[in-house]
């Protein structure tokens, strides 16, 4: 298990930046005053990353992803793709850059008057690819997304998951280096979400396409991202490798986003609650049982959630320790000595 984890990590050592966002700002000027959607954003996405950008609604994440392909023109700063400052390009050159940056959307945005097949042909027509090649490419892509039998179907005849698969095929038509996903799974049910995410992961691993994922769901980040940026009130609150952020969230918003995932609000927390974080170094067998036996500290498990993130077995648990401070600190000491992150949970209200 651990060996597999290491392998994946060593694959990703090609630390070549593919997207660099420098001091980016975006201010909208609606009729009443001005709205700062983004402020001083600095981000680097490396080649081969699956980079998650997560935030509450209205945090500016959709604007941020649209600044990467300049669907929104930033008011400050610059965006580099493959070392090229695309904010300085002419419209015509920018369009060529866009051939190499695919994008998928929450609402799929397929052309309703075109069949699945002709939707995939669309970007190839735009790029002026000859018909023969385009046809072949379309068939390949339908195969890749597992829908070769839906070539002649119109989007209205497809389910949400199938629509997103066609949208993914369409976004990949011109062999992009980057795939931007704007809340791509937010309109889908959990099992479809899972299958779309594993398709994205497959695309990332097989074709080496860098993926940027905008989402408001921490579970999406957990499932496929290796890096994450948390955006809050138009700024990047925190960013880094997913495990690091999960293990040790520094900002309030990060803690909130990580914590509220799962049984949102259904976790009833009392006094003396602690969050335990397990990673590949710590989650050795039956550590909790041993702790109880050895420290004679009776704990109550309030919430537990173990997941597999990018091959690393990772989890968190909220436990309630007894009132008696001595016993409690013994338990904490024991857990810390087993490389488990322990952190007191503050209860608001």
């Amino acid at each position, binding site marked *: 298990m651990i060996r597999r984890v290491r392998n994946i990590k060593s694959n990703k050592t090609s630390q070549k930046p593919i997207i660099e966002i420098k001091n980016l700002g975006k201010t909208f000027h609606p009729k009443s005053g001005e709205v700062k959607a983004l402020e001083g954003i600095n981000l680097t996405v490396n080649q081969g990353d699956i980079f998650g950008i997560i935030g509450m609604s209205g945090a500016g994440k959709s604007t941020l992803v649209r600044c990467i392909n300049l669907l929104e023109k930033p008011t400050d700063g610059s965006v580099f793709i493959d070392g090229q400052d695309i904010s300085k390009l002419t419209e015509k050159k920018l369009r060529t850059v*866009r051939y190499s940056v*695919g994008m998928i*959307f929450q609402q799929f945005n397929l052309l309703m*008057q075109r069949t699945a097949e002709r939707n995939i042909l*669309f*970007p190839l027509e*735009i790029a002026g690819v000859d018909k023969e090649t385009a046809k072949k490419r379309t068939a390949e892509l339908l195969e890749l997304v597992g829908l070769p039998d839906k070539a002649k179907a119109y989007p209205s005849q497809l389910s949400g998951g199938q629509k997103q698969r066609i949208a993914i095929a369409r976004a990949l038509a*011109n062999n992009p280096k980057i795939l931007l996903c704007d809340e791509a799974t937010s309109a889908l049910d959990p099992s479809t979400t899972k299958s779309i995410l594993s398709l994205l992961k497959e695309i990332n691993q097989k074709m080496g396409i860098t993926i940027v994922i905008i989402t408001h769901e921490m579970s999406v980040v957990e499932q496929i991202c290796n890096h994450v940026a948390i955006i809050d009130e138009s700024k990047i609150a925190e960013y880094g490798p997913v495990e690091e952020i999960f293990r040790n969230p520094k900002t309030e918003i990060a803690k909130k986003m990580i914590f509220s995932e799962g049984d949102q609000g259904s976790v009833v927390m009392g006094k003396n609650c602690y969050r335990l974080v397990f990673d590949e170094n710590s989650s050795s067998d039956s550590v909790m049982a041993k702790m109880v036996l050895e420290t004679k500290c009776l704990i109550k498990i309030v919430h537990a959630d173990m997941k597999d993130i990018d091959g690393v077995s990772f989890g968190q648990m909220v436990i309630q320790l007894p009132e008696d401070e001595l016993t409690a600190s013994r338990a904490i000491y024991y857990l810390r000595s087993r490389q488990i992150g322990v952190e007191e949970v503050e209860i608001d209200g």
Partner: protein
Amino acid sequence: MDSSMTTLIIQGTFETLYMTLVSTLIAYIIGLPVGVLLVTSDSEGIVPMRLLNKVLDIIVNITRSIPFLILLIAVIPFTRFIVGTSIGSTATIVPLVLAAAPFIARLVESSIKEVDYGIIEASLSMGASPLQVVTKVMIPEAKPSLIIGAAIATTTILGYSAMAGIVGGGGLGDIAIRFGYYRYETGVMVVTVVLLVLIVQIFQEFGMKIAQKQDHRK
């Protein structure tokens, strides 16, 4: 009704169809691009051009607000200049086009505005140029709505063409006025009205059928 009247009515029917269809066609040649420009040059459009948008908007509004009967008479000198005469069905095409083009521009504008902006955004994200967005996305995606608009436009123009009978514009309207109104020949009046209603029904049905067949949204 004698046979000469029958011939006259058949001829009138063809004149009406000729005026209506030719005017609709020419009016679309003008109205379609204007309608598209109204959408694309809007401040929220894909190529915002404020001045152009404002100018087009004003022209369309002014021409739309002149009642057809008045426009018909007011443009007689212009019609003479273009066609050489102000009488007959070919001459009537000029005021018909002038009245219909701005109306069509508005119909086209509203059809194209129905296209989900997400689809347009997606095509821009793939590197589509504004012209490609118009020809490959906006117009094909709005097709069912554009066809319904065309059916409405055709029937409206048909109605206008009958009005042109007042100034000797030819067609069924002309016959209805000359015989049915001036000579109290109620029979002729009834026949022309029935024919007009029939033609409108046929255009309407035909348009709706094609639109339905072309609509893949459901």
